[in-house]
């Protein structure tokens, strides 16, 4: 029974990682860049939803939508101001710019909202008790898993069926060819950032609801782990992000429970390293052999 509850908390944590990882994997697939600021967009989403619930007194669905709107705008603005001028620059230059944006968001949050952790009221309280109270599943974790599945289905349909989604896939395949076919590459990339940032806002609300505290650096560690999850599942692949995120969450939760709390992250990373040695392109990634 204990095992089951750890497993469930792992799946719930992993679903949050999966939602964050989706943002990483989509941006990576299309813009071929590691968006280090993604974790901090999560933090901004957390703060916006917290403020709109506590200060403005909005009900939680409206707060989530407001957070999504703010993060979407933020993501598009970041992309336009910081990343767009570097489209043709070497990838390391873009990486450093992304790190700069990440510092900027963290320090702006520090100035606006202070360094001390803020208490975050979970958007839904309470839990279901099963097996005569031996196993309790909080509504938040159920909602997290549910949201993760919904987002995954929606994104799969979006990239597979809509014009914009097809444009995205074309861009990730070959940008120059896509442009020749009349696809507006810049707009497609902006759109990808918009979707990724909106997902980050949802992830922020869910993450803060399960950890119930929020500070300017809240987003960075989950951000790194979600990126790890994206690589674990095969970066650029949407089902890969889901699989990687959930597996990472389960491994972390079980490692914390049964091996060591202090070494949980090490175990997660060790599993990643071993996986990459056996499958160098991640679990579901396509291995592209180099042509000479």
């Amino acid at each position: 029974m204990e095992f089951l509850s750890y497993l469930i908390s792992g799946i719930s944590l992993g679903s949050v990682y999966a939602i964050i990882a989706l943002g990483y994997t989509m941006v990576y697939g299309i813009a071929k860049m590691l968006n280090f600021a993604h974790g901090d967009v999560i933090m901004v989403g957390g703060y916006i939803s917290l403020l709109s619930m506590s200060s403005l007194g909005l009900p939680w669905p409206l707060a989530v939508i407001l957070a999504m709107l703010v993060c979407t705008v933020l993501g598009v603005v970041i992309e336009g101001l910081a990343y767009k001028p570097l489209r043709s620059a070497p990838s390391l230059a873009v990486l450093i710019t992304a790190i700069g944006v990440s510092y900027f968001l963290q320090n702006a949050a520090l100035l606006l909202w202070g360094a001390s952790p803020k208490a975050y009221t979970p958007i839904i309280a309470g839990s279901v008790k099963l097996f005569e109270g031996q196993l309790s599943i909080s509504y938040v974790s159920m909602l997290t898993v549910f949201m993760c599945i919904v987002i995954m289905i929606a994104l799969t349909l979006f990239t597979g069926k809509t014009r914009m989604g097809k444009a995205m896939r074309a861009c990730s395949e070959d940008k120059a060819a896509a442009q020749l076919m009349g696809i507006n590459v810049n707009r497609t990339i902006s759109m990808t950032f918009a979707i990724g940032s909106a997902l980050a806002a949802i992830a922020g609300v869910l993450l803060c609801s399960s950890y119930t505290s929020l500070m300017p650096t809240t987003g960075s560690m989950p951000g790194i782990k979600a990126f790890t999850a994206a690589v674990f599942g095969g970066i650029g692949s949407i089902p890969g992000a889901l699989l990687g995120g959930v597996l990472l969450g389960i491994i972390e939760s079980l490692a914390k429970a049964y091996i060591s709390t202090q070494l949980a992250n090490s175990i997660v990373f060790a599993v990643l390293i071993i996986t990459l040695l056996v499958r160098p392109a991640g679990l579901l990634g396509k291995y592209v052999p180099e042509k000479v």
Partner: protein
Amino acid sequence: MKLKSRKLKKTTVIDFATYIGVILAFIIMNTLKSQGMLTRSLTGQLIPICCYIVMAVSLNLTVGILGELSLGHAGFMSVGAFSGIVAAMSLQSVIPSEALRLAIALVVGAIFAAIAGTLVGIPVLRLRGDYLAIVTLAFGEIIKELINCLIIGVDEAGLHVINATGTKSVNDLGLSEAGRVLIKGAQGATGTQTIASFTAGFILIMISLVIILNLVRSRSGRAIMALRDNRIAAESVGINVTKYKMMAFVTSAALAGAAGALYGLNFSNLVATKFDFNTSILVLVFVVLGGLGNIWGSIIAATVLTILPEALRGFADYRMLIYAIVLILVMLATNNPQLKALFAKLIPVRKGENVNGQA
């Protein structure tokens, strides 16, 4: 004798200019320091600046010369720092001379970091591109957590090392009366005697420069750069990929370890979480801003960016925000095509000049 043969190669001139620049900077700073003309905060930063310069130069070997992105460089610094502290503190009664102990600590730090570099390098260097980057990140985090779990003490019988993951504490070390605890798990190293000196930092920078510049200009260095520019072509002319990759990676790790040992012996308290992902990124920022493969660029970037947050102290709470904005603006400006074209006009590239390296 022909006149032409006396003319030095351009790379040689740059190398000597780098050495002379560092020596001059050291002499100026030392004079200013002895005259008491430096502010206290700047004096306190001299040794960390030396450490960061060595870190940046060594990371430049991996990222700029070998061309592999490493996000876990702070891990090697951490290994070097804690092994250096243990070495220096446990030899305290045996070797009275501080300078000698410091030298031994730096060597021990370098050796342990080189061992860590070898262990990490064997799996990591099989991967490529972003996968390699994420695995170095993972190793950096693993090293941080493992060191966070160490409890090390010393007494007449020698070193005592235990793993603090469970409920074990300092009392489980089994130290004798005269024994001392050197590293207390998550609390890190406390009560370290601060024996690091600016002169030692300067010597360390010079040694790293000699090692790296000579490596880069040698046959092995050319092999390493050939791997960066085109791995398949390099392999096809008989360059041993693993050997040269390991050579660059382990050298880089060893120098980071020595820098870490110097850094560790500059502070009486040091926790393992100091050497986290953010520190790795900080050093990477030095390297990229200074220019990939450009050694003196790394030196200047490391110095300026270490002083910058202090210099911005007048802006109080806004200083890290300004730092972030400066970072973004510099990256945007240096990669702006119009600005690049302007610079190219101002500084005409001479025939046969080495133009690579500028990222």
